[in-house]
């Protein structure tokens, strides 16, 4: 570059870069503000904790989870166990009830919502207006009010008599609840389930093979039909052959015993090692991502924070496992062994009968309470009101999402589809719906989340869900903080699982798109 060289370092070389005073240094100010905020938040929380601790102590309320192991001595109106031995068992009954309601609600609300959403787009004025009336009425009334109304209506029905049947004896409806025919899991189910699992795996491979065949030869190979056939074959064979798995009982039993013999300290060490390893490997991978051919790139203060955060997280995890809650490890050991022994029991002697059974609802006599059990699938008034409430309410929102999703697909798409010669059904199935589904998926996940959260209103109509049973425990033991913590844990776990599933779908859809 010769004489054109413009670099003038003469003035710069003569001076040192001045370091700004600390209160004007962006990096320092930035971190100072953040640390101050953190101290403020942690301080406020600590302040509340100290005050709360004092107040609780003054009222002689300890915050622990002992009540989970004590027999609380109350009955539960419905669920897998009407007379639980311990508080923990009672809570478990509540959790099962909540999940039962949530899963049934999601299933029905989705079907109903899609139907109404499609009806809302109908060219037919009458259909369109009917769907619109449904949506506008139900979504603008709080779900709790609707639940109250359903409960009031159902509770005001007549007494249960032999005449309270409908649909020619297929069901009974009365102030005691609604009873329907029931299909239930019988003795041999678990053995049969082994066949189903194997059938699914084989079906999956068959499906993959047929798809490959179709792609390579262009011949139509019906992969879905084949997979279904394989599964059905296994199911039919399994129906008769399932007692052959009886020997698994012994295997599961000994696994359970072996699991039982794991000392707590070993599990503690194992978990600690896992925590330390994951923290360390995260940091390592992070540093690797910053490595350049020229050596380690300059770490910004943000990067350093991340590394410190991972390290601190690991240390906290370690403290938690070793000091704060060593019980966690023994709990994992115990539940592991419980699980294997449970399986051993299910595969054990006398468990080789029919896998699945069904029955019609019957009543024992005038006014007798139908129980969840042999008399058919009985929904109590509480369950029915909750189910109707959350399902019909959520269906209105799902309908709007479905409608929005379909409307979001540009008109050009269906025009393009007909231009390449697809008929209306093909274009709907292959072009419109996949795109509409992609748009609707995240809000749909949100609605499932809302539905699950709305099941917590069972307490209002006496449905024994996790909040309602937790509230009883809270009133009996006074341990409000523990119960509230358990609620939060449970619902956060639910939210997390739903968002994991939705995200998984989302990612899959996105890959399909590209």
């Amino acid at each position, binding site marked *: 570059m010769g004489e054109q060289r413009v670099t003038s370092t003469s003035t710069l070389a003569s001076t040192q870069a001045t370091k700004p005073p600390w*209160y*004007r240094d962006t990096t320092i100010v*930035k971190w100072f*503000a*953040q*640390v101050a*905020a*953190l101290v*403020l*938040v942690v301080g406020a929380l600590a*302040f*509340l904790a100290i*005050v*709360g601790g004092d*107040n609780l102590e003054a*009222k002689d309320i300890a915050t622990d989870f002992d009540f989970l192991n004590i027999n609380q001595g109350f009955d539960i109106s419905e669920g897998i166990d009407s007379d639980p031995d311990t508080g923990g068992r009672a809570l478990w009954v509540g959790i099962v009830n909540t999940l039962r309601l949530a899963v049934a609600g999601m299933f029905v609300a989705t079907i109903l919502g899609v139907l109404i959403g499609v009806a809302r787009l109908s*060219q*037919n*004025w*009458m*259909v369109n*207006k*009917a769907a619109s*009336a449904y949506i*506008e*009425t139900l*979504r*603008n*009334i*709080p779900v*709790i*009010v*609707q639940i*109250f*109304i359903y409960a*009031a*209506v159902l509770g*005001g029905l*007549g007494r249960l008599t032999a*005449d309270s049947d409908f649909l020619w004896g297929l069901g009974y409806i009365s102030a005691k609840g609604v009873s329907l025919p029931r299909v239930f899991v019988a003795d041999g189910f678990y053995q049969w389930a082994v066949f189903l699992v194997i059938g699914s795996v084989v079906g999956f491979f068959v499906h993959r093979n047929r798809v490959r065949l179709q792609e390579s030869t262009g011949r139509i190979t019906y992969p879905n039909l084949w997979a279904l056939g394989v599964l059905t074959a296994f199911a039919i064979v399994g129906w008769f052959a399932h007692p052959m798995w009886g020997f698994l009982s012994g295997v599961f039993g000994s696994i359970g015993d072996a699991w039982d013999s794991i000392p707590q300290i070993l599990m503690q060490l194992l978990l600690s090692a896992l925590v330390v390893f994951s923290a360390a490997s995260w940091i390592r991978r992070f540093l690797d991502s910053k490595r350049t051919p020229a050596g380690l790139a300059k770490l910004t203060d943000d990067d350093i*924070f991340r590394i410190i*955060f991972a390290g601190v997280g690991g240390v906290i995890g370690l403290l938690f496992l070793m000091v704060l809650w060593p019980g966690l490890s023994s709990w994992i050991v115990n539940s592991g062994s419980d699980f294997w022994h449970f399986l051993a029991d299910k595969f054990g002697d006398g468990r080789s009968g029919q896998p699945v059974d069904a029955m019609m609802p019957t009543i024992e006599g005038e006014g007798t309470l139908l129980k969840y059990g042999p008399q058919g699938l009985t929904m109590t008034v509480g369950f029915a009101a909750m189910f109707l409430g959350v399902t019909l309410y959520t269906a209105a929102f799902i309908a709007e999402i479905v409608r929005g999703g379909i409307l979001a697909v540009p008109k050009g798409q269906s025009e393009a589809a007909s231009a390449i010669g697809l008929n209306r059904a093909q274009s709907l199935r292959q072009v419109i719906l996949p795109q509409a589904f992609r748009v609707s998926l995240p809000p749909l996940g949100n609605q499932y*989340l809302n539905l699950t*959260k709305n099941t*917590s*209103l069972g*307490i*209002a109509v006496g449905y024994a869900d996790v*909040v309602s049973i937790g509230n009883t425990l*809270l009133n009996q033991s006074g341990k*409000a*903080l523990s119960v*509230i913590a358990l*609620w*939060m844990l449970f*619902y*956060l776990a*639910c*939210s*997390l699982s739903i968002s994991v599933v939705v995200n998984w779908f989302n990612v899959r859809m996105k890959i399909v798109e590209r």
Partner: protein
Amino acid sequence: MSGMITVEEAEEVVALPPEQPSLPPGEWIRKNLFSSIGNGVLTVLFALLLVFAFRGLVNFAFENPERDWDAVRANLRLYMTFAYPLDQYVRVWVSLGIVLSLSGLSAGLWSPDGYVSARRISTWFLGGGAVLLAAALAVQGQLQRDENGEFLIDEDLELIRGSWASGLGSRISWFALAAILIGAGAAIWFGLGDRRRNTFVRTVNLTYAGFGVIVGSLWVVRYGHYNGSPAEGTHYADPDSLVAMSTRLPWTVMWVLLGVSYFVGKAVRGWPLLKPLALTFWGLLPFFVFWVVLRDPDIDWAHVWTTDLPMYLAFAVIGGAVLFTLTNPSLGEIGRALAFVLLLVAVFTFVGGFFGWFSMLQKARLSFVFLAAFALVANNFAGEFAKRRTFVIGWLLTLGVMHYFVTLINSASTLNIRSDSFLGGFMFTIFAAVFGLMFSFPLGVLLALARTSSLPIFRLLATTFIEVVRGIPFITVLFFFSIMLPLFLPEGMEVAEHGAVIVGLVLFSSAYLAENVRGGLQSVRRGQYEAADATGLTTAQRTGLIVLPQALRVSIPPLVGQTISSYKETSLFAIVGIFDFLRIANNVVPNQSSPINFVGHKREGLLFVSLIYWIGSYAMSKYSQKLEKKLGVGSR
């Protein structure tokens, strides 16, 4: 009809979309209902479905021996204001009067340009009349009674009903009202002829007229007022508890107030500063109505003269002087350092109080916090003398309002209250929704800013809070606050359950609001930040002047949606034992046995509550759709 204008005038104000030319009826039916055989079948099926659903609903609500709408009518006051003492009831009317006056004034000041065509008004009348007619025709036969007045029952234990015609007779007034509505609709339709399409009425005028008709009907129709005889088995109402008759005069006053304030607002439209002033009043209104009008505080004047006023003056003068200095444009970093010191002092007043180093009035602590907040933003208001003076006046006013309200809160209420709080019923729902929105909105914006910030600790704290709160049901939050909050407060500080659940609502909805605002923040393009930086704006100025105005505009529709959700969420207060109007409908009225027996009359109340909730959320959602359309059109 001063409110009526023709399309030529309207077009000057708003560009109206051309209305679709309508098809002749026969063609319309063929196109929309019977375009194919399948469509025809669907039409018939859904028509039957609608008819049966409607008939079921109407009969469920009205034509049932177990229905007694007196359970609602006689308890309207309970539903609306719960246990507010009767001898002080004028305070409720004054509050409502203030709200309506301000509404009228604002409507006059802003003069919203919404128009409804005469054709649509006519359709409303015709539609309403048709629905009423259908409801009247959907009646079941009247129930038969024996000579003792007991209902007759057949062998299947079903109630025996008379002919359909016998039921029609009991709804003669429905037919009359339907005839009036249809007649009015038809009169507009045919009276205006072709002009119905381009004759318009201002929405404001229409709303006011509708309100007037309802108020006027109080003088004609004797809602809930009837004479019964205990001997005949029909109950008679306690005259005190009958609302409709005792409220016609106050409602008329309200109606007149609304109209007068509207014209006042229109008259003073051009005056400067009125709009920001009106907005400020709207902001202060909930506090004023709650603590001054409804609560009727008993102010200790001796304490005011000896302590409160001197304290105000001290903070006003010293704080004003400090702030005036801080707005000196040539101050530089010293100003920021001083503001930071003030912040430390403010925090220290709380910390010191906690550890018991000194005692201090809560008001003084709050004053320090306010002063620190003003000091922190002071450099944005630096400039010429006038600008600095405005800032200091703002300080004096804000401080004054704060001191005024804290004094009121600290004064005992003179109300003679029967329950633990005078707030209840629908009044509480409204206050909870309004306070909830007022406090959760700024909190939500802050959370959203923290979550999108480039600073990792802020991001971490905000994300944790938002995700945890969004992951748990509102009812557990309410349990937490109604049970735990009193336990977590230091000695001497108390919060009523009503306050505790509102705190819960604020925190809960702030997490959802934050997500809506975050959506808006993410829609602001990167270049906006860069342009703001390049022109030398500080981070605070960039956020307040460039980013937030754009982000909030985008998030208005979801924010209205969130407001609807919060309004509906307030219904959960009933579960934690707050006497809001849902709890009154579900637990209070069905247990009333004297002076009138309403035991078991739950469904009327629940239907009434649903209707009120429905009206509120439906109106808001319609408004939000309109807004969305308007904003959408504007941005493209």
